């Protein structure tokens, strides 16, 4: 019987095989399932490994990386030892990138929204669509907005990017809104006016500095790879570090002196330093003589800014102010470092003046573009996008912008824009209605008063978002364009953050893209074609642009793509500049540019905009965990294991007086919103301050690890109307990110 059964099986199987022999049944069904192709049959499979040159794009540092790949999987990232930026090391954000690369939560395909309702807690009802449909839908909606409301009704929310800039200009909209008013425009304004005639530099020669000062400078906490290395070397070389900060930041913890200055009063301290240095003739006479303009104004300017005057304002003893000023002037080299969102960042109404005062102080001690100080960028010539990709003329466009950026006397020359005022423009149609937006790499949580910005975005008819994660901004999108992660892309980086000598880094894909993604330049070109603007991008591609950048530097993509180090540029000895791009050709202590534009040529004292009150008795501080990158890293397993939640950080004694214990839930409330957090108590913060770390409070359920954790610090930051920003009359047009008081109470 058994044999009969067996023979029955064999007959059936043989019959089947005979049937199937002529071709694959599965394939013949036409179901479109995964197919296999021939590979060399291997009974013993040896591991295949390779090392691919790339550079990090988590922050703008661009550290060179050697990516180790085994059997098609990235297993390790190593700092490129030949790279002046990385010097063989990376920061935790780079090391953790592999987790983001292989995160299954990443966006995989283009999608469109089916639920017209938008907002927190609303399911977009996304469905997968083809790239063709995604471009068509976006083009149709953009065209509709243009036809009904003019090209200015489209907003580009993104950092500057050559392809996007061209599309925006081809459309004819002036509305390019970027985040810099919340980040560093105060410093850009002062550097532009006083030193560079352009942007601000970021090359900090900390390791050769012997007296490092900072007003809220948190080089270690902000965790730029090269800054961490430089500061630790400087300290190992017996540099003294003095940090003024109401909160004991990572850098403050490593400082020789941590001074808990009253928030928003750093300008007074800096002005008193100028007073001491000038009145006691402690300045670097030859540097001042040769490199600066306007010294003769300083004595009168600073006469009343005595340490005693500053002590009343800053709550720092006058003798300490005087001592530190003398130490700063006589320890060589000395420098006051600033980086984006420190006290000279656009945190207070007086931040731009502080940035001006810092330039003056650094010039007085002779360390602008000198070893031990802040160095201007050395870079290769940059090709002209228009020369590489000739184009037709752009259409005329309106000057007025939805964020009133064109009204900024100095900052309007920079392609930045104002996160603080754009909600007012959209909601109140000032100066005209806006109807559509293209967003790239900006999350909703990054805007001041994010909930108001959410309302503004709801007012738009159509939003297209380019992203790698289903962030809050992606949840507001009508169309989502998924981008690859940087480890999957090609590119060239100039590395503005560390270029003592010009050096480009090149990357090729470490692995092929894992999902159906497109690079941003390709998205722009295809969108342009869909909008019948393809003639602005004849022969244009990201690859050709990469090659043009390399050709301008003396090499080519073909030479560099297989280069053993992925780096182009030989070390050159550093020579400090002897002239600067200002009207006088010198560092302008008295700024003629500020004066011409209707601003104070010298940074006279100005208090912050809002002081604490009886109802709102706390100063609000924001910092961020060193291992996180803004709102982008909270879905990364490794990073979240290192720092998984934000808190309301309070002084332990003050909290005890208020009956708040460690871990208690508290509300932190400003005049525009309140957030709930657990209290974290420490002696390392002023009694009248509360500090909340940025990056948390995600509500997108698409971020499976980040959703629902902590609270969004930015919810508390009041946005501004166009009129309020204008009335501020701040050359840096800063968003006053900390210039408002809050109250704290138990939940």
């Amino acid at each position, binding site marked *: 019987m058994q044999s009969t059964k067996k023979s029955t099986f064999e007959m059936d199987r043989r019959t089947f095989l005979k049937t199937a022999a002529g071709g694959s049944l599965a394939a013949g069904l036409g179901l*479109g399932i995964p197919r*296999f192709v021939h590979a060399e049959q291997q009974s013993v499979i040896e591991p295949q490994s390779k090392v691919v040159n790339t550079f990090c794009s988590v922050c703008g540092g661009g550290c060179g990386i050697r990516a180790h790949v085994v059997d098609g999987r990235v297993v390790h990232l190593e700092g490129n030892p030949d790279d002046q930026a990385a010097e063989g090391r990376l920061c935790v954000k780079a090391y953790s990138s592999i987790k983001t690369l*292989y995160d299954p939560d990443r966006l995989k395909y283009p999608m469109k929204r089916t639920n017209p309702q938008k907002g927190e807690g609303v399911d977009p009802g996304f469905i997968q669509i083809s790239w063709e449909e995604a471009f068509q839908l976006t083009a149709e909606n953009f065209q509709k907005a243009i036809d009904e409301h003019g090209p200015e009704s489209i907003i580009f929310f993104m950092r500057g990017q050559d392809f996007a800039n061209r599309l925006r200009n081809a459309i004819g909209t002036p509305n390019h809104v970027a985040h810099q008013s919340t980040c560093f425009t105060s410093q850009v304004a002062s550097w532009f006016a006083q030193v560079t005639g352009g942007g601000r530099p970021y090359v900090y020669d900390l390791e050769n500095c012997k007296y490092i000062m900072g007003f809220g400078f948190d080089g270690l906490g902000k965790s730029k790879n090269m800054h961490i290395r430089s500061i630790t070397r400087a300290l190992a070389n017996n540099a003294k570090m003095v940090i003024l900060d109401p909160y004991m930041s990572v850098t403050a913890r490593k400082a020789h002196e941590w001074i808990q200055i009253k928030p928003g009063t750093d300008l007074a301290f800096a002005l008193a330093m100028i007073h001491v240095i000038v009145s006691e003739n402690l300045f670097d006479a030859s540097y001042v003589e040769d490199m600066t303009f306007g010294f003769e104004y300083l004595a009168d300017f600073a006469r009343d800014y005595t340490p005693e005057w500053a002590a009343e304002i800053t709550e720092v003893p006058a003798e300490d102010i005087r001592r530190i000023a003398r130490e700063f002037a006589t320890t060589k080299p000395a420098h006051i470092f600033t980086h984006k969102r420190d006290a000279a960042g656009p945190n207070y109404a007086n931040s731009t003046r502080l940035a001006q005062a810092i330039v003056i102080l650094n010039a007085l001690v002779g360390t602008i573009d000198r070893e031990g100080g802040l160095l201007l960028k050395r870079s290769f010539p940059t090709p002209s996008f228009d020369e590489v990709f000739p184009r037709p003329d752009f259409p005329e466009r309106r000057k007025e912008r939805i964020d009133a950026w064109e009204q900024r006397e100095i900052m309007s020359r920079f392609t930045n824009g104002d996160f603080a005022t754009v909600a007012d423009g959209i909601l109140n149609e000032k100066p005209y209605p806006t109807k559509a937006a293209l967003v790239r790499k900006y999350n909703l949580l990054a805007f001041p008063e994010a909930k108001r910005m959410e309302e503004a975005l709801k007012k738009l008819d159509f939003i297209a978002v380019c992203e790698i994660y289903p962030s809050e901004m992606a949840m507001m999108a009508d169309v989502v364009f998924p981008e690859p992660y940087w480890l999957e892309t090609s590119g060239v980086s100039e590395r503005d953050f560390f270029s003592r000598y010009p050096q480009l880094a090149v990357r090729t894909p470490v692995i092929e893209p894992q999902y159906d993604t497109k690079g941003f330049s390709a998205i722009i070109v295809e969108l342009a074609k869909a909008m019948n603007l393809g003639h602005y991008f004849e022969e244009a591609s990201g690859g050709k642009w990469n090659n043009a950048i390399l050709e301008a530097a003396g090499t080519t993509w073909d030479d560099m793509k297989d280069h053993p180090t992925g780096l182009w540029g030989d070390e050159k000895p550093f020579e400090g500049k002897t002239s600067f791009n200002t009207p006088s050709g010198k560092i302008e202590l008295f700024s003629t540019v500020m004066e011409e534009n209707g601003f104070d040529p010298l940074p006279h004292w100005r208090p912050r905009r809002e002081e604490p009150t009886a109802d709102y008795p706390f100063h609000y501080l924001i910092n961020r965990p060193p291992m996180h990158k803004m709102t982008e890293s909270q879905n990364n397993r490794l990073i979240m294991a290192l720092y998984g939640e934000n808190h309301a950080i309070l002084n332990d004694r003050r909290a005890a007086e208020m009956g708040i214990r460690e871990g208690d839930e508290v509300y932190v409330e400003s005049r525009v919103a309140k957030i709930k957090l657990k209290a974290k108590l420490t002696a390392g913060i002023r009694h009248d301050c509360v500090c909340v770390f940025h990056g948390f409070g995600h509500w997108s359920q*698409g971020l499976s690890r980040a959703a629902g954790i902590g609270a969004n610090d930015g919810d508390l930051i009041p946005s501004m109307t166009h009129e309020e920003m204008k009335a501020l009359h701040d050359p840096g047009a800063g968003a006053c990110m900390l210039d408002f008081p809050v109250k704290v109470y138990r939940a």
Partner: protein
Amino acid sequence: MVMVMNVNYQDRVVQYALHARFFYDQLLAKDWPVLQNTFEAMTPTCRQAHQVIRTEIEKALSDKAAEEKLRVEYAHLFLLPEGVKMYASVHQSSEPLLRQKAWQQVTKRYKTHGLKLEPDEYHPEDHASVELSFMAHLIEQGESYEAQLDFLQKHVLIWLPGVLQKLCTHPKAEIYRLVSERTLHFLKEEEQLLMQLMNME
């Protein structure tokens, strides 16, 4: 007493291919003719077992609004994080990430059979649709029952049933709940069948 086994190899291949297809990509109205032919390619018994799924999918793909609803369901379950992850690596590694050891192992397994995934394929080698497709391939190529069972037990059954269980109770799953229940049942049947076939050789 030996049980009478009714083995239809075509049914097995068709079911692996069909279930691979369900998890491979969303279903659109234009897919219905091919799906219909696929159901018709089954024996009556097998077709009967799929009748509920067939009816529901046909309804969903016959109407634009219903098609969109099915596409939304697919996106929730398979494209967005609140759904399930159809990759072996995510479930078999210490970290729920793609392209971990399980992916390397199944990729190597394909190579031992002289195969690799088509280069344009977006899904990695350890995606459910790929592993199910490979099972269809093993059957079609006349690989031994031992080889089939070995792949089924060492790859597919290690992780996919758990994911299918989650799909069966996922709040967003309606038609895909029916699909998952059927796939679970099919895989259990397959394991039992192959074990019996091996015992009878």
